């Protein structure tokens, strides 16, 4: 019946396929061990055709994962050709270059069979809390220091679990039970996807996904191309300097819009560096394309068709196309900055679509230390997700303490205190941190943390926008810079392991977003409301004074 499918049938099946991957993601969300997955949604899930083209992606998930996972399935197919796949197989990798950018992300791909035939692949990824090595921070000087590397391997073959591999994984993490649980959770979510896909194909009488795939990809690509066609043609450039590890890093790009789509070339971007803030091209592509998608075609579902008109290149050996064995653990710090760079170029072609620069990179408190007297040096490891402000939007203020471009959720303080021996003395909005403007940047936060058990703990800092705050636009002012240090006065580096001694409070000021438009043009009522709400102080209000 495949040949006779009407557009209506195909549309219904497309809807169903999106529901199938949403089910897949929900299973992962509910069963994951990694707190950053279960409390914060740091995951992604999708279904692919046998050529490795992503057909549907769960709405639940983070952009960095989704769009890099989209490419990763092609690498799985290179390693495990379709004709060798059998039911009950599960493939795994955490290769940063062919997976989702760092060793902490496990990608699992499971072939889906229907009536004995291979019909597609389910893939999912999530962030695991510990993969050995030096730990989750930017301090390693090559990828080998960053932990256990899992090449493309079979986690299960014909339904039989690879016990050797599981033992290796358990033996190479500080959190063996959680890590094993997360691997099972990833496997289970793909299983659910495979089962639902087969049920769906029975219901609709499908023997394969070819016609449906063609429909999804053609319609999506056409929809994105139609949006691109509304934009002027040409090439625009932008660059943005960020803090880097120990020296500033320039992120430069040219953005070309033509009849074939949008090409972003990171020519002119700084070379890769000696510490783990380098970005594999897959992850660069993921966030670049995410920025383009938000600004150009936010309503088109994400799949290989809607991604196709967007092309991303970068010089080999640059920080956005780092070459193995470059360290990459904290690749998100630079990767999450890329939408801002894209917006700055796109704004020249199409004003009023893009926000001013924001905090953009997550300001997580990656902490670890002694949990109890007999628990080893790293009895706890925790990523307390937190964020700064986003940039002002063309018609709206920025959002305070909100993740963008990342889609993760913040960690509740009470949960963080339940699983670490820390106490948070403060987690509050940071007045005056939003860049002044007709539309104000979002505010950052003030966070203060101390050990509850009188032991030191380590901060694995991976912050940016300390030396280079989010820039305002069109007369709007810059957002406040971020800062990290001790209440007693010592200033911490933005990146790297640093120890918080017992009795000392760690103080983290997350950055604010940039403003848009001259501050004196701000609606007086909005300004008065900000003052009444103490989002800006009387001193901060001076930025809005035309004199």
């Amino acid at each position: 019946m495949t040949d006779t499918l009407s557009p209506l049938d195909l549309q219904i099946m497309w809807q169903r396929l999106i529901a199938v991957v949403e089910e897949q993601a929900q299973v992962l969300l509910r069963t994951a061990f990694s707190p950053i997955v279960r409390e914060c949604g740091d995951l992604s899930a999708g279904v692919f055709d046998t050529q490795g083209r992503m057909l549907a992606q769960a709405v639940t998930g983070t952009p960095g994962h989704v769009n890099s996972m989209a490419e990763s399935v092609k690498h799985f197919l290179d390693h495990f050709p379709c004709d060798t796949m059998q039911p009950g197989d599960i493939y795994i990798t955490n290769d940063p270059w062919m997976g989702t950018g760092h060793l902490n992300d496990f990608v699992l791909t499971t072939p889906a069979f229907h009536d004995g035939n291979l019909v597609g692949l389910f893939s999912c990824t999530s962030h695991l809390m510990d993969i050995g090595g030096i730990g989750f921070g930017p301090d390693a000087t090559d990828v080998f220091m960053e932990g256990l590397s899992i090449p493309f391997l079979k986690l299960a073959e014909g339904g039989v679990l690879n016990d050797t591999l599981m033992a290796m994984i358990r033996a190479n993490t500080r959190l063996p039970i959680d890590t094993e649980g997360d691997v099972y959770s990833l496997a289970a979510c793909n299983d659910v996807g495979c089962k639902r896909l087969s049920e769906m194909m029975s219901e609709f009488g499908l023997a394969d996904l070819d016609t449906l795939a063609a429909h999804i990809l053609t319609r999506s690509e056409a929809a994105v191309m139609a949006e691109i066609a509304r934009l002027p043609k040409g090439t625009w450039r932008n660059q943005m300097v960020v803090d880097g590890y120990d020296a500033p890093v320039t992120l430069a790009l040219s953005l070309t819009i033509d009849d074939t789509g949008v090409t972003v070339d990171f020519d002119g971007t700084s070379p890769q560096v000696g510490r783990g803030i380098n970005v594999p091209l897959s992850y660069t592509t993921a966030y670049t394309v995410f920025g383009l998608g938000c600004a150009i075609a936010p309503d088109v579902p994400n799949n290989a068709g809607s991604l196709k008109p967007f092309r991303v290149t970068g010089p080999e050996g640059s920080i956005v196309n780092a070459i193995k064995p470059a360290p990459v653990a904290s690749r998100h710090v630079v990767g999450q900055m890329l939408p801002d760079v894209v917006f700055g170029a796109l704004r020249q072609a199409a004003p009023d679509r893009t926000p001013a620069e924001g905090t953009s990179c997550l300001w997580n408190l990656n902490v670890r230390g002694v949990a109890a007297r007999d628990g080893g040096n790293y009895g706890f490891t925790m990523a307390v997700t937190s964020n700064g402000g986003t940039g002002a939007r063309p018609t709206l203020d920025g959002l305070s303490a909100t993740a963008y471009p990342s889609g993760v959720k913040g960690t509740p303080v009470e949960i963080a205190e339940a699983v670490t021996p820390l106490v948070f003395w403060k987690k509050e909005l940071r007045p005056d941190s939003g860049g002044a403007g007709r539309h104000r940047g979002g505010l950052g936060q003030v966070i203060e943390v101390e050990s509850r058990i009188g032991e030191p703990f380590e901060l694995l800092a991976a912050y940016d926008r300390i030396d280079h705050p989010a820039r305002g636009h069109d007369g709007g002012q810059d957002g406040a810079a971020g800062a990290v240090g001790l209440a007693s006065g010592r200033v911490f580096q933005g990146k790297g392991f640093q120890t918080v001694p017992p009795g000392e409070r760690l103080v983290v000021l997350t950055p604010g977003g940039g403003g848009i438009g001259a501050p004196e043009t701000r609606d007086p009522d909005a300004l008065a409301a900000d003052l009444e709400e103490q989002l800006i102080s009387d001193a901060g209000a001076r930025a809005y004074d035309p004199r």
Partner: protein
Amino acid sequence: MTGASAPLGLAADIGGTFTDVVAERGHQRVSAKVLTTHDAPERALLDGVTQALDALGASFAEVAQFVHGTTLATNAIIERKGAVTALIATEGFRDVIAIADESRHAQYDLNIERNPPLVPRRLRFTVPERMDVTGQPLLELDEDALRQVARDALAAGAQAIAVAFLHAYANPAHERRAREILADIAPDLPVSISSEVCPEIREYERTSTTIANAYVQPLMAGYLTRLARALADRGCQAPLRLMTSGGALASIDAACRFPVRLVESGPAGGAILAGHIAAASGEDRVLSFDMGGTTAKICLIEDGRPQTARTFEVDRTARFLKGSGLPIRIPVIEMIEIGAGGGSIAAIDATQSITVGPESAGSEPGPAAYGRGGTQPTVTDADVVLGRIAPDRFAGRTLSLNADAAAKALNDTIATPLGLETEMGALGVTEMVDETMSNAARVHAVERGATLKTHSLIAFGGAAPLHAARVAEKLGLARVIIPADAGVGSAVGFLRAPVAFESTRSRFMRLDTFDAAAATALLDEMTAETTDLASGATGPLVQRRTAFMRYAGQGHEISVDLPIAPLTGADADTLRTAFETAYRRLFERHIPSAAIEILSWSVFVGAETEAPTPPDPVPPLPAPEAPGHRRIFDATTRSWGEVPVHERDALHPGTCLPGPALIVENATSTYVTARFDARVDGLNALILDRKTEAP
């Protein structure tokens, strides 16, 4: 029991537009529908009650039970018409509700806006104090600071106060002391404390819930007190009971203390009714499906009990998207709500696909077929074009539908741009909305570890009976039940709910260090407190104790039933086994070596639900001659066919009708597709059974 000797039950459901009243005595049931009077809701309610009692020839004094559900609390939040509320929080945590979960409810939308908090920043105060996660004080409460803050709050115009300190669920001492001090300063100021309203871990949800309670408290307490007085004045001696979101009835005292429990109580009534029908019909697994003008609500029911959850969102501003509302953490009948109803508007998206909802034409201008100026095609318009609604028989003949206007709207927006015949455009709309609802049910089921194939569908609400058979086909379900009086389903459901209260408290305990004595003490204390709040429950009380358990470090808890007896050390093993079984059911495998912890505990105390009487078996009757026929376009065959049309009133218990058929009544129409046969059971419900061999 029948006739005048049976106890008289009254139920009233105040909705945004209508107030429904049902009076029931034995098998006699009458209903009244009156317009809600927003300035003084009790006025319409009393009007409706008077009408219903008159119809029964009864007086207020004869009323034995009065059950009330209302959207007043929900609407106060949505319309931001509650009390000026101040928050007093732990120093350093002024912005818990503004920081919220730091996420965006729409990933790709650069222009989202946060739902504004119920308490603005200028009314959010903090005081030095701090508990740690185990409930040990790290910093004593600064009482002078609290007094100052209380005066500041009053000076700023606060009419209600919410106190939400960190880890107060683990030790409520500081919050209780704060309340005492507030009572000294302002004895009449209502105060809600988080350790009573929502003693559960996760500060954002707990604070948000406590604030919502404080925010609606003056309004609800005032209204309930006035209503109780008005009823007493009219000679009504029956105690007034309030329907809660958890599906149990609360006393007026409990409702005045915890009015947040009344939020979303209307839909709960529908689920209770569905649960009751499921139990009466011997259906252990049921999906209730309530489709109205704007939204569809879906609830899973097992063994007559609707699935419950511990959290939901009120006031989802952005197209019903998860995360766009305010979280409320209370026991709630778990329902998913999607923007799909009869008034949902159809459009074409960027991929040339048909979309339906969540925007709705509402009742003004309403669907194009209403002829009130609506030009955008809606689900109702599509149903009209497909022949499923008889235009002259809609809404009890109060409104004659204009089929041409419906066709024109569909042609202009959908069919012509896509190059389709009108009926295929209309079918595209109904198929997409049915698919959307089915998918929502599927994803919801997987979240709950259920497989839908064995469920029956119970459909009510104006639009559900038209779509139920097709939704059942898509979900592979074999039976659809359409109860009698589906239009006032919520109010009828209220009469089936038990008087009960449920409390939940967070208290960490690992199974490997299981402290049976501490757990027993906690549960006994909760039972005492809960029994108090369930006052008014008559007859033998039932108690349910539940532990919310998870693998240490995991994010979501699974509920495991606990024995109603002192726990012993051996119960750790029993609990482990029960948890692993529940976990496997949900997720197909368990994790053998992982530690298990209990995060929260819950106690339910209430009257035993009266076991519903199964319907008397009725001998099958042949289908009567159909008074008419309509041309209906079928979704499966995609062709027009002549379908017999029956009046539901004319179908007596036992009547069997082969599908396809259309069964019309005042409030709705039931479309029996060709894959189903229909019959009327002893409760006057329509039962649609899938034909053994699909045509």
